[in-house]
C-alpha cells in the first residue's frame, strides 16, 4: 500500500477527521456561496424567458437540483451506513446520520418548489403524478430513518438498525418508483404530463448545473458540520 493512501485512511479516526473537517468547512461554504451566486444570477437574469411558461419556470433552478440531491443523498447515506455497519467504521456511520436531515430537507424543498411551480403552470398545487408521489414516499423513507435512529438510545444499535433500514430502502426504491409509475399510467385522468420541451437552452442547463454543484457544496458543508457535532457528542 502506498504511503498516500495510508495517509487518507488515517482520517477514518474521528478525532483526526474532526480537524480535517474543520479546515474544509469554510472552503465548502465559500464554494457554495460563489456557485449559488453565479447560478442564481445566470438562472434569474441571463437565461431567456420560457416561451410557454414565462418567468414562472425559473423555479426549476432550485427545484430540479433539489430533487437530484434528494435522491442522490439517500443513496450516499445508504452507502456510508452500509460501510459503517460492514467494517464497523464509526466515522462512516456518523456520516450517514449527518446526511439524513439534509436529504430530508432537499426532498421537502423539491416538493415545496414543485407545488409553487405547479400552481401557475398546471393550475394546481399538487397532482398525484408518478414523480411527485415517488418523491413524497422518499420523504417518508427519510422520516423513517430519522425516527428510527433517534428512537434508539444506544448509538451502536442505532447506527446498525439505521444502516439495515437504509439498505432495505435503497433496494426497494426502484420497485416503489416503478410500481408508482405503473399505478399512475393506469389512473390517467387528472394527471398532467411533466415532460418539458425536447431541447433545453444551454444557458438554462448551465445555470441548473451550477445550482446542482452549489447544492453539493452546501450538502458537504452541512454534513461536515453535523459530523463534527456528532464526534463531539459521542467521543467527548
Amino acid at each position: 500500500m502506498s504511503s498516500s493512501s495510508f495517509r487518507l485512511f488515517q482520517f477514518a479516526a474521528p478525532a483526526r477527521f474532526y480537524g480535517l473537517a474543520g479546515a474544509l468547512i469554510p472552503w465548502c461554504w465559500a464554494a457554495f456561496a460563489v456557485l449559488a451566486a453565479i447560478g442564481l444570477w445566470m438562472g434569474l437574469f441571463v437565461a431567456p424567458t420560457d416561451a410557454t411558461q414565462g418567468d414562472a419556470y425559473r423555479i426549476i433552478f432550485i427545484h430540479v437540483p433539489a430533487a437530484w440531491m434528494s435522491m442522490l443523498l439517500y443513496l450516499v447515506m445508504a452507502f456510508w451506513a452500509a460501510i459503517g455497519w460492514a467494517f464497523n467504521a464509526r466515522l462512516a456511520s456518523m456520516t450517514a446520520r449527518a446526511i439524513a436531515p439534509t436529504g430530508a430537507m432537499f426532498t421537502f424543498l423539491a416538493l415545496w418548489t414543485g407545488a409553487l411551480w405547479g400552481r401557475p403552470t398546471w393550475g394546481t398545487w399538487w397532482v398525484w403524478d408518478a414523480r411527485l408521489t415517488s418523491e413524497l414516499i422518499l420523504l417518508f423513507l427519510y422520516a423513517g430513518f430519522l425516527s428510527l435512529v433517534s428512537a434508539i438510545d444506544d448509538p451502536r444499535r442505532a447506527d446498525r438498525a439505521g444502516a439495515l433500514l437504509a439498505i432495505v430502502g435503497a433496494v426497494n426504491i426502484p420497485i416503489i418508483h416503478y410500481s408508482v409509475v405503473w399505478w399512475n399510467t393506469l389512473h390517467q385522468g387528472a394527471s398532467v404530463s411533466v415532460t418539458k420541451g425536447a431541447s433545453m437552452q444551454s444557458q438554462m442547463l448551465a445555470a441548473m448545473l451550477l445550482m446542482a454543484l452549489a447544492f453539493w457544496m452546501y450538502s458537504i458543508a452541512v454534513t461536515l458540520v453535523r459530523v463534527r457535532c456528532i464526534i463531539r457528542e459521542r467521543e467527548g
Partner: protein
Amino acid sequence: MSGPFAAILARDLRLAARRRADALLPIAFFTVAISLFPLGVGPEPQTLRQIAPGVVWVAALLAAMLSVTQLYAGDLADGSLEQMLVASGPGTLDKLGLVLAKAAAHWLVTGLPLVIVAPLFGLMFDMRGEAIASLALTLALGTPVLSLLGGLGAALTLGLRSGAALLILLIVPLCIPALIFGAGAVAAIDAGQSARGHYSLLGAFLIFTALVAPPATAAALRIATE
C-alpha cells in the same frame, strides 16, 4: 410435519389460541376501519363500489401493521427470543427459519382471517362476484408480504418506546407496491380488463420479499438483541 420449524409455528399458534381476544383484535380493527368509510364518504353504491378495493386493502395493511408489533415483543420480554437465537445444533432452528416460522404464524393468525372475511365486505360494498374473487386472491398473495415486511419492522423496533407508531412509519412505504398491485387488480377486473399483469407483479413482489425480508429480519434481530 415435525421438526423445529413446525414446533415454533405450533407454539405461536397455541399462544394465539390461548389469547383469543388478542388474536381477534386485528379482524375487529379491520371491520371497524372499513365500516367507517361508508359513514364518511356516503352510502351511494356507485362510489362505494369504486373505492372498495382500495379501502379493503388499506384496512388490511393497517391491521397487519398494528398486529405485527407484538410478533417478537412477548418472546423478548420472557427471554425466550434470546434462547431461540443462541440455540444451535440438531433439533434447533437457525435465525432464518425462526423468522420464517414467526412470519408464517403471524400470517395464519392475522392474514388468513382477513382473506376469509374480505369477501363479506365486498358484498357490503356492492362489488360484483368476479371482483370479490379477485379481492380475495390479491389479499391471499399480498398479506404474506405484509407479514414478512411487518416482521422486519417488528425486529427493527424491538423494545423501543414508540415501537408501534415507528413500525408503521418504517414499513408502510415498503408495502406500497403490494397495495398498488393488490387494489389495482380488483379495479382492473371492475373495469372489465384483465388483471393478469397485476397478479404476476404481486406474485413477483411476494417472491422478492420472501427472499429479501427474512435475512434482513434475522440481521435486525441480531442488532436488537446484541
